[in-house]
């Protein structure tokens, strides 16, 4: 097998692009284009993979294990967050073999509540920050938002990029903001939300992915879940290609998170297939892949029960939060 996945025209170490705006632009300009139909065809073909029996059981547990169980509602309350955390730790009270999810994802003001609720468990607390979901605030506000979440105990920060700046060509502004937020994160892991629905083209998704990776994103994330277009399979393909190539060139494994609109086991399994076949099986872990979802867990548990018992279940028998 080819030892490295070199990218034509890309410097040996793409992280060098962090040195200057000119270097960053050179890197982004050198990235190969993405043919829309081609990537959609690839995703559609992978979507035909038939995952059955034991591989489906493994996929369901993997989907649970990689899930950021999310609540991002204006109506969220500490009580609801605690309930969510209980479910995150033990998704199926009737079956202790069901693994915990990877993290709970909440707004910054509810981080402390969540941290308290998951203390002593394997579940991390993630917080959206930086004026989520629009990101339309000053850098100072974004940094304060981040610092507050980190101070409250967040393990992970989900920031949004300035899509307006990106589309206007001001890649330096986007880059600098990520760098600044990364610094504010301290030890917390940084997930950078590209909001791919607003970036509109796969070329933009690819460039934004690399921009975020070079700026220090631990994970690149598709979307906020708050716009019309959420994660899609082809977008995941493009982002996983970026992470795969970045790892091949730097030796650093970064993660991908798909978010928004993933509601069924079938969809979740398709994402796992894409992770498996694009980035490789080494990415099938919560350290490198996440599914951000709120309602997906119910279907996963229903499907899991079906596999375990052979009987089709009822949503009424699965705790909703």
């Amino acid at each position, binding site marked *: 097998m080819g030892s490295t996945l070199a990218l034509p025209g890309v410097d040996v170490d793409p992280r060098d692009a962090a040195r200057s705006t000119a270097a960053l632009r050179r890197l982004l300009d050198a990235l190969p284009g993405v*043919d*829309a*139909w*081609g990537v*959609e065809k690839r995703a559609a073909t992978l979507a035909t993979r038939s995952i059955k029996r034991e591989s489906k059981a493994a996929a369901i547990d993997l989907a649970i294990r990689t899930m950021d169980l999310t609540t991002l509602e204006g109506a969220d309350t500490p009580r609801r967050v605690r309930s969510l955390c209980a479910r995150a730790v033990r998704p199926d009270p009737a079956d202790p073999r069901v693994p915990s999810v990877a993290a709970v994802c909440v707004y910054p003001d509810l981080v402390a509540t969540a941290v308290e609720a998951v203390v002593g468990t394997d579940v991390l607390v993630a917080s959206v920050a930086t004026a989520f979901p629009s990101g339309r605030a000053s850098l100072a506000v974004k940094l304060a938002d981040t610092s507050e979440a980190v101070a409250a105990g967040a393990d992970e920060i989900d920031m949004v990029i300035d899509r307006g700046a990106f589309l206007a060509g001001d890649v330096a502004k986007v880059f600098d903001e990520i760098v600044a937020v990364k610094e504010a994160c301290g030890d917390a892991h940084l997930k950078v939300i590209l909001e791919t629905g607003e970036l*509109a*083209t*796969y070329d933009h998704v690819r460039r934004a992915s690399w921009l975020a990776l070079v700026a220090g994103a631990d994970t690149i994330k598709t979307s906020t879940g708050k716009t019309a277009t959420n994660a899609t399979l082809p977008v995941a393909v493009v982002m996983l290609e970026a992470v795969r190539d970045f790892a091949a060139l730097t030796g650093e494994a970064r993660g991908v998170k798909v978010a928004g609109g993933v509601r069924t086991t079938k969809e979740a399994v398709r994402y796992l297939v894409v992770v498996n076949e694009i980035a490789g099986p080494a990415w099938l872990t919560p350290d490198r892949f996440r599914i951000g979802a709120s309602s997906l867990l119910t279907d996963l548990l229903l499907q899991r029960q079906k596999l375990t018992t052979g009987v089709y279940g009822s949503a009424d028998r699965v705790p909703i939060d």
Partner: protein
Amino acid sequence: MSERLDVRRTSKLFIGGAFPRSESGRTLEVRGHDGAFLANAARASRKDVRDAVVAARAAQPRWAGATAYNRGQVLYRVAEMLEGRAAQFTAELAAATGDAEAAAAEVAAAVDRWVWYAGWTDKFAQVAGSVNPVAGPFFNLSAPEPVGVVGIVAPRASALLGLTSVVAPALVAGNAVVVVASEDRPLPAVTLAEVLATSDVPGGVVNVLTGQRDELAPVLAGHLDVDGLDLTGMAGATVEELAALEVLAAEDVTRVRPAPAAEPDWTAEPRGVDRITAWCDVKTVWHPKGT
């Protein structure tokens, strides 16, 4: 007062834009309908065929690469030049057939036929091509392209109109041609070559060979650099003769227009573009649509 002695023309081949004698040094005596001596036409050899095919192959890409508008103007220029030499053609045809009135009509029809085909250069692709509504997000376009070098056995009886009717359509799409002229009546073809030489037709795009059909046709049919073979001038040949030529053509999957049972009535207006598309292959190009 003594009559002035006319200066006669040496009848030559037309290869690569030049007028060589046959490399074999052979000639073929041409006599008129009344048996009177007309000329010693060059009797082309297999090597002359080879040279002609080489010249055609070399000239073809540029001819095909010229704009359709340009090819149209060049073919129209042939009509202009032919019109200017109508008297000469009429005399030659009359000498061959003995029918001066028919000869004049044939020349006029030949001029008109060049004009007709000249007009097709920038139109036939719209008739023979298509935009294909495939079931997917693709630009999908089909257009006819020239096959390359077309070998033509020209009609035996109709030495100018028949010749024009087989050569002109092959040129429309951008093919180059090697044509074996009527064995019995080669002189109009020789004169047409002189017209072509003065009509902006690039050298090598049309190559005219005079000589014995049955000697030259197999060489043309078997040549691996001949992409199309028009056997119209083999009308009346036996099935065995035709089969032998087509077997030779099959060696490299040459496209063949088989011989008709009898020489067609060339005075009839062409009904379609089949003689153009016969020397074309349709090329289909796909490209995805997306942002």
